[in-house]
């Protein structure tokens, strides 16, 4: 392994020297962000190659309005909130699910199935599943909605905050941040949507896109491939995660997403409103939509004062450039979601990179 790493590093060094300008690569997957920090990859890269974390952490990109809707639900005594662990500490205007949990009934689940089971086991309460995530978690939400419909379970609904990654990448290149030279494409999302989905980024924007897994070797080799393409001035789509990712992706998963959800305009933290970027339940499943059932607002919320997570998510600043970073905003007392989520850029900087 070390031979291949050394070879890839040589290619990167060579490209950075010969290109004569800095290279900026963005990863748009929280698992990549963590893997890069955890393996210390940044410390092995030449100065000319800059890695930026984009809108890849599902909790982080969730708009403040959605967080406020979740916390509004947590004030109800007729609901059980079922959520993935990462959402539990995201602060809203009035605390987080963690601080509300000392009063409200908030349960951390590892799967959407666990949430549905809670509904079966608690007939006197409505279980609301906090359904966030990209194309990776959307199929699991769709499955339980279909199951609930089939079984006639009425005390279950989902608050869909599911997002699609491609519209966000297009929004970035379409004006939010055009400094990005290339994308390290997400491994997990690509399993679902297929590597070929990123072809439009290459053809429409001329940016290299390389799909990689999460082993340090894969990431470094993907960076070497990106450097090679930039040196040759030819953007291509390439997947080096062929053990897991296919061209077309998981067609069954795509089908079940399409059966239950449709793409709608949605709000993202930092990126604002993006056309057809969020998944809402289709008409025939609308009765499982928690926004509709509880009359919750899906309008954008106001970011907490001073928090620059939005700019971090767009790769416009790095976490230490935010005045709150590691001062008022820490993992123990987070202000922005990028400090809360274990996949958040600020949390990764704080956890693996902070020296004071």
């Amino acid at each position, binding site marked *: 392994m070390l031979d291949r790493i050394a070879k890839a590093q040589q290619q990167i060094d060579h490209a950075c020297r010969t290109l004569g300008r800095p290279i900026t690569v963005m990863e748009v997957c929280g698992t990549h962000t963590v893997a890069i920090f955890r393996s210390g990859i940044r410390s092995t890269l030449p100065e000319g190659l800059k890695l930026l974390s984009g809108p890849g952490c599902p909790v982080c990109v969730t708009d403040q309005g959605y967080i406020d809707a979740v916390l509004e639900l947590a004030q109800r005594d007729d609901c059980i909130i079922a959520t993935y662990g990462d959402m539990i500490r995201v602060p809203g205007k009035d605390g987080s699910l963690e601080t509300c949990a000392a009063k409200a009934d908030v349960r951390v689940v590892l799967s959407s199935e666990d949430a549905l089971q809670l509904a079966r086991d608690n007939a006197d309460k409505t279980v609301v599943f906090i359904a966030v995530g990209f194309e990776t978690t959307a199929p699991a939400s769709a499955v339980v909605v279909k199951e609930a419909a089939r079984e006639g379970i009425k005390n279950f609904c989902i608050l869909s905050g599911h997002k699609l990654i491609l519209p966000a990448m297009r929004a970035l290149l379409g004006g939010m941040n055009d400094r990005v030279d290339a994308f390290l494409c997400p491994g997990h999302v690509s399993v679902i949507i297929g590597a070929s989905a990123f072809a439009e980024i290459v053809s429409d924007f001329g940016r290299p896109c390389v799909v990689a897994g999460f082993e340090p070797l894969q990431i470094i080799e993907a960076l070497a491939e990106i450097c090679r393409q930039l040196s040759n001035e030819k953007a291509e789509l390439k997947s080096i995660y062929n053990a897991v990712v296919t061209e077309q992706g998981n067609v069954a998963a795509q089908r079940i997403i399409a059966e239950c959800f449709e793409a709608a305009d949605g709000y993202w933290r930092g990126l604002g409103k993006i056309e057809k970027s969020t998944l809402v339940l289709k008409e025939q499943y609308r009765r499982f939509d928690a926004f509709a059932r509880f009359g919750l607002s899906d309008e954008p919320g106001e970011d907490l004062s001073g928090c620059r997570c939005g700019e971090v998510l767009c790769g416009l600043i790095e976490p230490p450039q935010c005045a709150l970073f590691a001062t008022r905003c820490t993992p123990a007392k987070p202000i922005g979601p990028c400090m809360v989520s*274990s996949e958040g850029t600020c949390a990764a900087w704080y956890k693996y990179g902070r020296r004071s």
Partner: protein
Amino acid sequence: MAQHEPERILLAHGGGGQLTSQLIRELVLPHLRNEALSPLGDSARLELGSTSICLTTDSYVVKPLFFHGGDIGKLAVCGTINDLAVAGSRPVALTLSLIIEEGFEKPLLERILQSIGRTARENNVSVVTGDTKTVERGSADGLFINTAGVGVRLPGVNPGLDRIKVGDKVLLNGTIGDHGMTIISQREGIEFESRLVSDCAALADLTCMLFERTGVKFMRDATRGGLAAVLNEIVEGAGLAIEIRDANIPVRPSVQAAADMLGFDVLNIANEGKFVAVVSPETADACLELCRSHPLGRDAALIGEVVASQGVPLVELRTKIGGRRIVQMPYGRELPRIC
């Protein structure tokens, strides 16, 4: 929420990370401060006439009560023995308090008591006094256990953070993450190809041998918060830095796979049969050899060394690909009710 809402205790306050330490420093210590308590060691050291003892207490709320490799009873004996052992004492006696929920099945309680008896006998400690309380259904999750323990300090053995110096080596007695990943996978009903087994074990036999025969300067068991928490406590207490090598840290592949799948950093995961020892460079190899000669230290490794601190005391990890990163004190939320 109104502004006058009182702050509440969070599950994370019991996680053994930053929040636990904050709770103890801000809420507990101001009311109870004294010479024996203030160092906040694994055990308090007390002089009773001419005898020097260690005293400790610990409560056990693990869920599930039975797990691969142990149960709450075995854990309650081993955990308290280990707190005495790493402080440089030989454990002699335990107390046992049972808080039992109404409706708890007697055969289960008997199995747990059998396990307590067996573990105590195997480790030459006696349960010498105890208490039983019952609470209404819903007031406790089956069974909670508290044990306190007394150990006699080993003569001439005086471990302390103040003895740690630049150049000292860091010794770990085996694989990390086994207990925490076993509990979380069993709790969530996730089965992996090879079954995970807790490392729950009493370490006194091994630690006494190490203390008596080698120059161990400091030792702490790596429970809640895992290896990351212990190393951070050491650098903070000693005002020095530690550099560890990822390649030297023993982790079972099945544990690593489970941690990766669930998104945990194995350095933060709880252990129940592991300690970190800081030893002088001259004695490091002898310590390692001695450790490996014991069944509970077979996979022992020297994982890093103490280095000078560049301003702030930090734990730094050299990764397998030659990169560097910081190892922070865990926050505390990752795994509640792990022990």
